[in-house]
C-alpha cells in the first residue's frame, strides 16, 4: 500500500519538474489546497457563461473528478459547453483532455479501474445518475476517434451500423447517402458503397467514421484528436467538415494542435498537467489575451 502511494505521488512530480505542479499533486487528497489561480479562473468562467453570449448550455460538468486506480486524472472540472458550437479542448499530453471527453459519453465505464465523481449534465440531466443507461447515452452522443477505425465491413454497412444496432425504422439507403454527403465523402464513394471501408485512404476513413457517427443523428459529436493521424490536406478537409457540422451539432474536439483549435473552435478549454482545467473562454480571448500566465506560456510554447 505504502509503496503504491509513493509511486502515485512521485511519478508525476518527477516528470513535471515544476514545484507548482508538485504542490498540486501533494494536495491531491484534499481539494481545498488547490492553487489560487485555478479557483479564480473557474470563477471567471462561470461569470462569462452567465452572460449567455455563447448560446444555451448543453453539457455542463460540476466538480468532476476522475481517478484511474490511485491516480487522479481530472481534478474538480467545472465547464459549460454551449449548444451548436465547436468547443476545443487543448493541453499537453496526459493532462486529462481525452479523459474528460470520454466522461461525456461514459466511455470510461469500459475501463475497470476508472472512477468518476461529481456531476456531468447533458441537457440538465446528470449522466452518472443510476437511471441513465450508458448505452442509451452513447446513442445520443457520437464519437470520432484519434485513429480512423472503420469496421471491416462495406462502406455502406459502416454508415448503416448505428441504424442497425439501434433498430431505427428509417430508409437506410437515404440516410446513408445523406450522411455521406454531409461528411463530404459521397462523391468519392458513391460508386463503390459495397466495397470494404478498409480500402479507403486514411482521410476518407476518418470522414467515413464521421458519417457513421452522424447517421444516427446524435445531439453531440465528440472528437478525440480526429486529424492527428492524417496528412495536412486530409486534416484541412476534416476541419472544414467540423465547421459545417457545427451548424447542426454540438462538437467537442480534443486536439494537440493549437492552430487547429484557433481555426475551428468557438470556445476553448485549456487543461494543464495534473488534470486541471486552467482556463475556459472564447477562443479569441484564450489565444489573444489569456487570463492565466500558465496558459500563455503553454500557447506561446514556453511550456508543455
Amino acid at each position, binding site marked *: 500500500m505504502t509503496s503504491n502511494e509513493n509511486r502515485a505521488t512521485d511519478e508525476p512530480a518527477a516528470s513535471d519538474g515544476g514545484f507548482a505542479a508538485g504542490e498540486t499533486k501533494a494536495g491531491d487528497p484534499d481539494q481545498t489546497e488547490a492553487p489560487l489561480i485555478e479557483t479564480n479562473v473557474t470563477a471567471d468562467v462561470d461569470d462569462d457563461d452567465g452572460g449567455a453570449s455563447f448560446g444555451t448550455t448543453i453539457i455542463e460538468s460540476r466538480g468532476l473528478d476522475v481517478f484511474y486506480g490511485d491516480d487522479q486524472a481530472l481534478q474538480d472540472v467545472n465547464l459549460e459547453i454551449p449548444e451548436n458550437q465547436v468547443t476545443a479542448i487543448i493541453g499537453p499530453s496526459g493532462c486529462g483532455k481525452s479523459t474528460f471527453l470520454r466522461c461525456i*459519453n461514459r*466511455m470510461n465505464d469500459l475501463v475497470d479501474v476508472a472512477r468518476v465523481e461529481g456531476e456531468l449534465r447533458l441537457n440538465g440531466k446528470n449522466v452518472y445518475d443510476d437511471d441513465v443507461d450508458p*448505452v*442509451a447515452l452513447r446513442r445520443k452522443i457520437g464519437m470520432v476517434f484519434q485513429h480512423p*477505425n472503420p*469496421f*471491416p465491413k462495406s462502406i455502406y454497412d459502416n454508415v448503416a451500423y448505428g441504424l442497425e*444496432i439501434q433498430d431505427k425504422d428509417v430508409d437506410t439507403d437515404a440516410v446513408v447517402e445523406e450522411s455521406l454527403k454531409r461528411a463530404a465523402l459521397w462523391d468519392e464513394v458513391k460508386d463503390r458503397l459495397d466495397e470494404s471501408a478498409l480500402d479507403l485512404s486514411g482521410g476518407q476513413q476518418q470522414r467515413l467514421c464521421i458519417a457513421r457517427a452522424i447517421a*444516427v443523428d446524435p445531439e453531440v459529436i465528440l472528437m478525440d484528436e480526429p486529424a492527428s493521424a492524417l496528412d495536412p490536406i486530409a486534416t484541412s478537409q476534416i476541419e472544414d467538415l467540423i465547421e459545417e457540422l457545427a451548424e447542426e451539432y454540438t462538437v467537442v474536439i480534443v486536439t494537440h494542435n493549437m492552430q487547429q483549435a484557433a481555426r475551428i473552435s468557438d470556445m476553448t478549454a485549456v487543461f494543464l498537467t495534473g488534470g486541471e482545467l486552467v482556463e475556459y473562454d472564447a477562443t479569441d480571448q484564450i489565444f489573444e489575451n489569456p487570463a492565466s500566465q500558465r496558459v500563455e506560456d503553454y500557447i506561446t510554447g514556453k511550456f508543455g
Partner: protein
Amino acid sequence: MASERRAESHDLGYISRFRGTVFQTLTRAASLVGVVALALLLVFITIDAVRPTTADPAWYAVVVSTFVLPTLLFAAYSRRHSAVGAVAVRACGATVGGAALATVLIIWLGDQLGPLTLIGVIVPTLVVGAVLARGREALGVGLQTAGVAAAGATVATVGALFLGAQATLVYAVALGVPMAALGWFFLSRPAIGSVGAHAIIWAAIAAALTSVVVEIGSAFAGVRLGETALAVYALGAMVGVLGYAIYARAYRDGGIVGLLAPFVPLAAVLAGYLFHREFVITTPVTPLLYLALVGVPTIAVAARTLSREGRGRIGVVLPLVPVVGAAAVLAFHNRFLLTGPTVLGTFGLAIGLSFGVYAWRLDTRRGADADSTPGTSVDSSDGGATAHSEGRLGLLAPLVVFGGLLAGLLGARAFGIAGPQTWLDVQFLLSDSHYEAALAGLHPALIGSLYVGLMVAILSFPVGVGAAIYLEEYAPENRWTRLLEVNIGNLAGVPSVVYGLLGVGVFVRYAGLPLGALIVGGFTLSLLILPIVIISAQEAIRAVPDSLRQASYGMGSTRWQTIRNVVLPEALPGILTGTILALGRAVGETAPLLMVGYAAVSGVPDSLTGQGTAMPLQVFSWARDAQPLFRENLAAAGALTMLIVMLAMNGIAILIRNKYQTQS
C-alpha cells in the same frame, strides 16, 4: 587510459563471429533434422503404398512427356509473366478444389451417388445462379444465401442418409414450399418479415436445445419417447417464440403477425410427418428433426438478410433449388449405382464447375474494372484485377496440368503400357474390410473418421467458442478467471489415453451408452480438443483490435451487439483456423478411440449408437497383421490416405487464414 582505448579502436581488423556462426549452424541443423526425418518417412510410406517400381519405364516416359514437361514449361513461362502466374495458380487451385469436392462426394455418398444426383443438384443451381447473376445485387444475395444453404445442405445430407430417399423428398417438399412462400411474403412486408424471421430462428434454436436435452435425457434414462418427443420439441419451439416476443417486445409496431411465422414450418414438418408415416413404417424421429432444424433456419436467415437489405429479392429462392434437386434425385437413387463413368462424371462436373465459376468471376471483375474510371480509386484490389485480365493465359494452366496428366494416363493405357501397381486407388477407398489384401479397403474407416470429425466439430465448436467469448469478453479479471484459464491450459496437456478413460467412465459406465458407439467417440474426442479450441479462439478474439470495440461501443452498441457484429466476424477466420487444426488432431487420434471400444474392422456406422470405427485404428490393425501385404502395403496406403486428409485440413486452415489476412 582514454588514449589507450582510442588507440585500440583505430584497429579496423577482424572481429570474431565464431560463436554466432556455430549458433547459426546449430539452428539450421535443428530445423533440418525434423523436416528431413519426416520427408524420409513420407517417402518410405509412399513407396510402399504406391509401388512406383512396378511401372513400365515407358509409362514414366509417357507421363513425363505429356504431364511433367509441359507443366514445367508452363511454370517457367508464368514465372516471367507474373500476371499469368497469379491466374494460373488460382485456376489450378479452383480445379483442385473441385477435384477434392468430387472425391469427398464419391467417397461419402458412395453407392447413393449417381449421375442424376449431380445433374439434379448442380445443374439447377447453376441455371438459377446464372439467371440471378445478371443483376449484380442479386448475385451478391444469391451467393450469400447459397453459402447459408450449403452449410444447411451438408447437415441435411446427414439427415438424408439416415432418413432414406422418400422421406427426404416428402420433407423437402412439405417444408421447402411453404418456407419459400413465407420468405416471399416477408420480403414484401419488412416489418412483419423481421419479426417473423427472428421468431423462426428463436423457435429453431429453442427446439434444437429442447431436442438435445430430451435426446440426451432419454438416452440416459433408457426411455424411447417416440412420437411424444415431437410434441415436446414443438413445445420448446413455442417457448422460444414466447421468449423472443418478450425479449424484443415484438408485439408492438404491427409486427405481431410475424410471431405466427414459426407455425408455418412447424405445421409443415408435422404434415410431412403424418403424410410420410402412411408410406413408411419405421420413421426415426431424430433425423426428421435434423432436416427441420437445418432447412428452417437456412431459409429464415436468408429471408432476414434479404428483408434487411431489400435488394435482389429473388435470391431467396436459391437455397431451395439444390434441396429440391437433391431430394428429387435421392428418390430415384437406388437405380443409379456407382460406376466408373459416374466417378469420372463427378470429377469432370465438379472440376469443370469450379473452374468455370473462377473464369466467369475473372470475366465479371474485368468488366467491372472497365466500368470504373481508372485513377480515381485507391482500391488495392484493382491492381490485382488488372493483373487478372492481363493474365488470362493463366486460365490454360489446369488444361496443361490436369489435361496432360489425364492424356498421359489414358494414352499409356491405350497402348498397353503398365503403370505402377498402386495400393492407393479408387477400389481401396471404396471397399470394405476383407481378408484378401487385394480386395480390402478403407471405406468404413474413412466414413467413420468423417462422422467422428463432423460430430467433434459440431460439439466442440459452439462450446469452445462460447467459452472463449465468455473468458475474453465477459469474465471479470479476477483469480477465478485466471484459475479457469490456467486449468484450460493444463487440460490441453492431458494425455489422450486419460481422455479415453474419461470417455469410458462417463459415457459408457455412467451414462449407459453402448461400448464402441459412434457418439461416445465423438463426445470423447470433443472433450479432448475442447481446450485447444478454447485457447485458439481466445487468441483470435484477443487479436481483434480494441479500437473496433471502442468504435462499436461509441455508437451505442450493447456488449452483445459489439460481440456479434464486430468481434466475432473479425475473429472468425482465426477461430476457424484453430478449430480446423484441432479437428485434424482429433481425426488422427487413436488411443481414446481404442479405450472407448471403437473397432478396426467394422461396417460404416449406421446410427449414432452404432459401432464406430476410424482410420488410425484400421491402419493400426493392418500394421499388426500376419500377412506382409497387409502389414507393409495396406498399412502404408492407409497412412498415406490419413496424411492426405490431414494435409488437406491444414491446407484449408491456411487458406482461410491467408484469405482474411490479405483483406484486413
